């Protein structure tokens, strides 16, 4: 082990007022691995990834990216550090076009600063190309508003965005919620594709079958802390993992 891991979280604590949402969380993500993050409702999964994506401040602890300590004060810090997060319901702006969503906050412009003129043609061209790459080009122009896409197509757009910006780590919070069978398979395929092109992923889902289909490793949280971090689909059964999630294994 000469190369530092992609992401290290050390002794992360997070309080929401008096709610102790994260307790001494330690987590390591290596380059090119897909990690499933599991846990019951309220276990702290979303909180953990919000900390890692700069969306909420943490109370104490340290985050290192590729061995270097990083101060995470805003989502821009995380994006600049190569961490792309795809939230279930707040990833995209429904009334904006696919192209504008892809480039939101990182627009291509021909002028300086926030008054820069949008380079609409270039953004549309890149978006059309990306849509072809993730396989939803058929009849969907990049000027289509996100609001008229299906849930799976939206996930695809969000994943395409992470691939375009070449993020080292793509975090997906419950990306398969409310998706049909075919769309779920589509999302899982994108996740594998992302890994094959060298990206790491954190994959959160309540459906353990989905998790088992793509992940290299599973991390389980319970009541704000990590209770297992090296479960593997090859060596654990779904039942084993479920027992860890509920705490049943302690009773045995």
């Amino acid at each position, binding site marked *: 082990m000469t190369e530092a891991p992609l992401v290290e979280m050390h002794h992360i604590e997070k309080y929401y007022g008096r709610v102790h949402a994260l307790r001494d969380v330690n987590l390591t993500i290596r380059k090119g691995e897909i990690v499933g993050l599991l846990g019951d409702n309220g276990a702290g999964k979303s909180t953990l990834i919000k900390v890692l*994506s700069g*969306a909420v401040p943490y109370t104490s602890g340290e985050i290192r990216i590729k061995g270097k300590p990083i101060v995470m004060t*805003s*989502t*821009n810090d995380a*994006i600049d550090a190569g961490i792309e*997060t795809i*939230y279930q*319901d*707040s*990833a*995209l*702006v*429904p*009334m*904006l*076009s*696919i*192209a*504008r969503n892809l480039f*939101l*906050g*990182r*627009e291509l*412009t021909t*002028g300086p*600063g*926030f*008054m*820069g*003129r*949008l380079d*609409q043609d270039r953004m549309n061209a890149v978006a059309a190309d990306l849509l072809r790459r993730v396989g939803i080009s058929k*009849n*969907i*122009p990049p*000027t*289509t*508003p*996100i*609001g*008229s*896409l*299906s849930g799976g197509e939206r996930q695809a757009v969000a994943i395409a965005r992470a691939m375009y910006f070449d993020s080292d780590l793509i975090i997906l919070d419950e990306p398969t919620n409310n998706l049909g069978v075919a769309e779920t398979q589509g999302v899982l395929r994108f996740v594998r594709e992302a890994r094959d092109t060298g990206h790491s992923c954190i994959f959160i889902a309540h459906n353990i079958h989905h998790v088992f289909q793509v992940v290299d490793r599973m991390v389980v949280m319970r009541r704000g802390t990590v209770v297992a971090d090296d479960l593997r689909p090859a060596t654990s059964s779904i039942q084993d993992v479920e027992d860890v999630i509920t705490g049943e294994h302690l009773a045995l």
Partner: protein
Amino acid sequence: MTEQGTTPTEHPPALGIVRFLIAKPEFGPLVLLVLMIVVFTSINPAFASLNNIGNALTFTVELGLIALSMTLLMTAGEFDLSVGSVFGFSPVIMWTFFNAGFLPLPAAFIVALLIAVCIGLVSGLFVTRLGIPSFLVTLGMLLVVRGSALWLTDGFPQRTWDAHDQWLSQVLVGDFYIGGLRIYMSLIWFILLASLSHYFLTRTRFGNWIQATGGNPSAARNRGVPTQRVKVTLFMMSAAMAAFAGIISSIRVSAANPNSGAGYELEVIAMVVIGGTVLTGGRGTIAGTVLGVLILRLMRNGIVLIGVPGLAYNIFIGAIILGMMALHAGLERRHNTGT
């Protein structure tokens, strides 16, 4: 986000163009405007005279200016009820400084605008930092600002008749003739600022942030868009625009009345929503707002010309608002046209 939109499919070209037009939020207001002009002119041909149109356009401008910045603010998901009071307050400040021999007119103008910007800043900070709805914040601000204007002046108008030999007032409200049509400078300002706002909203990075901020604030934040700064900036622009409009108005009518602009906030918001901007944010159209401004002003002008008692004006305005809202709601899904 439950609705499953339709994917675009191929249509014959002619049908495609019709669908394209109907899908535009500006379509409804445009049809209404054309209808109004046709009906009013057929009842009273004087409606279409150069003189009448010139007059109607002049008065249009002052509310129209406020409507432009209100469109941007509403697209970002907020609105500002204090614009009418700033409209009355800012000229009072400017003329008080000037009449007291305190400042030359251009300096008083700048100071009045800066004070308005500060008012917008305070509203914006209350809304974004404290999370108080803009309805409550700007309602409070309305009372504070209107109260200040009344208290400073004891309720009396400030005189502005020294204005006419000032170059600044020529730049703001001077006039010139094109053929038989008398054009006021304020109209030029309106056209200029409307074009700028349109460009700003649809073609710049900041415009993209405005739409994203109103459309899905958390998604915008997650992408690193500074949504709070966007909103605060727009509150400041809104107040500055209200001040600018109020000052233009005070020079035109030769009085800075601390009561002027009362009720303008609602008329402006009506203009904006009639034009197709959504009250809840995410989608806004400057072209639509310009149509909304014209509709309300020509309606006011037209019903008098065709002999309807002026007091009935509000009945028509209310009916237009309700009808337009129903239309926009019915076409809601088609309006999600992106760019």
